[in-house]
């Protein structure tokens, strides 16, 4: 056997950590989830070496669909260099030996927490969401026995009432993330805690979208080109977030912006939450209003090279 053919992963573990029977069980659950878009499939989730709530569902889904030749991208809050994204990428480098990338277009599998990349996805890509609470109705009804019935009967009036109460109280729907969606006209689904800004990207997406909730032991999915509609009312249509500002680094006015506090008397700037998208734009010569400011440049350098200790 040549050096090239030798296992590139830590051979103390099976490829991608999980044993083959477990992966098969998870793949069956994924297939069922794809066949019934938006339906939460219970699965025999395993205990992973990362903590529950830290992406164990997404990790199990990724581990079950990844192959040795796949390229993996992991983001948290849209960024490739947040510590948990780094930690999960390191995990797969170790137990699966796969190539990793920060470039959205180069990735076969993108595992994400709280964001959908700004760059459009393509056919063949898999977007794996980490899901803390798969049940969109849980905050309204704590009992699983009840919420399963509500899904069974497509009885979603409770959620509409909640949205209506927002309108009665505030004049508009006051949900900014985990904004509930209706999938394929049948199942109410939690998009995971992505900002509602990202909801429209789920609609008719050419990529496969898989959702893994490890602690709650549920998998659900949106097949390519599926209808995903954010709940709203005829007289109060769904509205994603908008900013008056644009990215201080790359000048983008169409991306999700994070607020970066610069001092303790109100100084702040807004930058793209999707770090790869922002870097890509800057590499192409785009500059934001603080693009030449020393403080902003220092921040950009930190983001690019990493100075955190």
């Amino acid at each position: 056997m040549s050096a090239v053919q030798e296992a590139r992963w830590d051979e103390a573990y099976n490829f991608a950590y999980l044993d083959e029977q477990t992966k098969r069980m998870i793949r069956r659950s994924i297939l069922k989830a794809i066949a019934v878009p938006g339906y939460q499939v219970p699965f025999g989730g395993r205990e992973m070496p990362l903590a529950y709530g830290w992406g164990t569902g997404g990790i199990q889904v990724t581990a079950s669909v990844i192959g040795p030749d796949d390229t993996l991208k992991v983001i948290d809050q849209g960024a490739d260099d947040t510590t948990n994204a780094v930690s999960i990428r390191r995990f797969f480098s170790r137990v699966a030996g796969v190539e990793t990338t920060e470039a959205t277009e180069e990735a076969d599998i993108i595992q994400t927490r709280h964001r959908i990349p700004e760059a459009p996805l393509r056919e063949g890509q898999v977007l794996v969401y980490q899901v803390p609470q798969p049940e969109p109705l849980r905050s309204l009804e704590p009992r699983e026995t009840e919420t399963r019935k509500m899904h069974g009967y497509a009885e979603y009036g409770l959620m509409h009432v909640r949205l209506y109460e927002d309108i009665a109280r505030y004049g508009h729907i006051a949900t900014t993330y985990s904004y509930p969606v209706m999938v394929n006209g049948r199942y109410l689904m939690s998009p995971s805690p992505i900002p509602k800004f990202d909801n429209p990207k789920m609609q008719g997406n050419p990529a496969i979208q898989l959702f893994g909730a490890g602690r709650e032991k549920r998998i659900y999915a949106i097949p390519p080109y599926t209808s995903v509609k954010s709940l709203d009312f005829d007289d109060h249509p769904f509205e994603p977030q908008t900013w008056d500002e644009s990215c201080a680094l790359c000048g983008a006015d169409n991306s999700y912006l994070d607020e970066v506090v610069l001092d303790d008397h109100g100084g702040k700037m807004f930058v793209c939450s999707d770090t790869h998208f922002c870097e890509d734009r800057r590499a192409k010569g785009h500059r934001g209003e603080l693009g030449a400011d020393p403080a902003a440049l220092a921040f950009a350098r930190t983001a690019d090279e990493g100075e955190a200790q």
Partner: protein
Amino acid sequence: MYVAVKGGERAILNSHELIAETRRGDTSVPEVSTRQISEQLGLAVDRVMAEGSIYDRDLAALAVKQAQGDLVEAIFLLRAYRTTLPRLAVSEPVDTAQMLVRRRVSAAYKDIPGGQVLGPTYDYTHRLLDFALAAEEGVGEPEAPVGEAPLDAGMPHVADILDYEGLIEPEIPDEDASEPFDLTREPMSFPADRDQRLQNLARGDEGFVLALGYSTQRGFGGTHPFAGEIRMGEVSVEIVPEELGFAIDIGDVVVSECHMINQFEGSAERPPQFTRGYGLSFGHNERKVMAMALVDRALRAREFGEAAVYPAQDEEFVLYHADNVEAAGFVSHLKLPHYVDFQAELGLIRKLRREFEERQQKDAAE
């Protein structure tokens, strides 16, 4: 292979170095061995085995050492390791009536066949700090006296004595279920049967189960328990290999067991009978099995037609929140960055305040 190395990654690697240094502590103090932990912190090891769901003292001791004595962290380590193990066989039910007893007490009867066996217990120690244990020269080699006669071989369960008279509900094996529900292979499902509930409680956090059990005693779901019997000792584990077709002994495990006897009013259809609550755990975990037996009985409310109005009787509440690996993970995940969602909330709260001020100004103008 390209692995992006960034600030976050360097910080993580450095934190691993720092935790290793912190774990070792002052290097002028000898390093503790896993064997010392296994032998001298045996009850910590027992708890980690029970809630970690692996009977292996060496691995549990290693987990305790690696986790710097944080038992919930040690349980997590053992659970994650457990995922990588193949399942070779499913054992026969252990027969605790055949236990090689180290301790066995009943609070329901003064004397029982086989006798009361106090065994190793802190129950009647006065909780005074023993400074002899802190002495430089150590405690030497303490030796307990050996009994004059061996214990009775036959130690029937107290519940079986009541059963003979028909005073307690009979325990009827579930004939349809060939294998019990296994939470480590299947997700929780409701309504939960007793096998699922008991497995959940056996793996559940001792503190959580203890508090729930306590709540039933204080009035949040009174089941009027008597400690029918508590026993601890070795039981043999048997499997039936397919190629043999008969049971073979594969080893002994130490378990703790508790039978609680609870009151029951009876009904038009049933004569008054005592009811059961049951607790079983790997190792010496008496507090856990007693609490477990209280909560097991409370969770049987549906079976006895009792209104489930208290937390300990609510199976979704108890079963979904008993696991400390799940609970610790989800509480600690709040440490992860949430700034995308926080940004969304910042945008909303600024908008709501702006609208509020506009209304105020409009009202003032009118």
